[in-house]
């Protein structure tokens, strides 16, 4: 669908495009981290692409990969009606240094999207004017959408009431209300135990 865009970017940045693939009619480019900002600037300004809308910017955590994180952008040209997805792999396996250039100077919408991405996954966008948490509170430690964040870990802002059975689920039984909720995911990632997603 947008195969000609892939060709255009490959032509303009022969060394920066690491790979490309298409799925369900959507083309995806994997680019080098050093060219992340330049490729986006090209796609936005070039008359043949005119990507004037940043639809989404997010990241994915692949704990077994190196680099561990993948930052994804979805671009749309409202005038020419084509879309393109770009990915870049960033970060070490510990997730301590995860840095990529900001896109806030190209699209204003990148500001909040990058703040959310930082909040949830801890990706630092170099050059962002106001990189702080957007959804969670400043006292929150860690980044909850990372795969190594414990599924049951909560960080209350105020202490719970000091009464008996404060950890109980509800005053009604598990079979009432929503029985499919509130289950433990602690076994995920442990060796020898299969997660809920795996077939037995």
């Amino acid at each position, binding site marked *: 669908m947008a195969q000609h865009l892939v060709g255009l970017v490959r032509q303009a940045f022969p060394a920066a495009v690491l790979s490309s693939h298409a799925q369900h009619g959507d083309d995806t480019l994997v680019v080098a981290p050093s060219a992340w900002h330049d490729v986006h600037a090209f796609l936005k300004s070039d008359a043949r692409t005119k990507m004037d809308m940043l639809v989404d910017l997010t990241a994915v955590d692949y704990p077994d990969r190196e680099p561990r994180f993948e930052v994804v952008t979805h671009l749309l040209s409202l005038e020419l009606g084509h879309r393109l997805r770009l990915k870049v792999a960033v970060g070490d396996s510990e997730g301590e240094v995860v840095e990529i250039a900001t896109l806030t100077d190209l699209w204003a919408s990148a500001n909040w999207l990058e703040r959310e991405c930082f909040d949830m996954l801890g990706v630092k966008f170099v050059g962002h004017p106001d990189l702080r948490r957007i959804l969670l509170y400043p006292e929150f430690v860690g980044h909850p959408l990372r795969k190594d964040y414990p599924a049951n870990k909560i960080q*209350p802002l105020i202490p719970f009431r000091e009464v008996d059975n404060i950890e109980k689920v509800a005053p009604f039984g598990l079979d009432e209300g929503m029985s499919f909720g509130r289950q433990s995911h602690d076994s995920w990632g442990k060796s020898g135990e299969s997660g809920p997603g795996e077939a037995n």
Partner: protein
Amino acid sequence: MGELNLPTGTRTETLEAGEGAAFATTRLKDMLSWAQKYSLFMYPFVTACCGMEFMSLSGPRFDFSRFGAEAPRFSPRQSDLLWVVGTITQRQAPILRRIYEQMMEPKYVLAFGTCASCGGFYDNYACVAGIDKIIPCDVYVPGCPPRPEGVLDGLMLLQDKIQRGDRTPGFVKPRRDPASDQTLGMVTLRRNKDAAP
């Protein structure tokens, strides 16, 4: 004119209005409870999708002003029933407790929906698993969202608890239990603990 039913042990006295001009002090509490339960000033703390059901409740079809819960007060200092309608996040929890602390005694809390009651499926880093972790709760109404009839059951249960001076948490059971396929009927309003069911 209306009448006033006084549960006094095993027998029930009915005083016609205008009679018995001199009330004994032991009955003042009952009269106050009676006045209180039919004039609940409510503070809607609406945070999520259950708010739609709350709107339908206050509309003419279900209309909880029939039960005296007529006037919403958007200042917690003037209200005595706190409706917690929707999911409470960890970030929202200090605000909810502050609202609760600003309310004047006697104050009552009704957890509207599964999220407010126990967190529902929001078993994650962001949400409080039930408002009773933060503030004491009088009536729980499970459901996602609860049926308006269920909420009215909860409101009547709360009125009954106010009349009896009972502050133990109560909850609304479903009228029909899908597990046993039995019709459970209305929520039981215990007029008298000693009376036969």
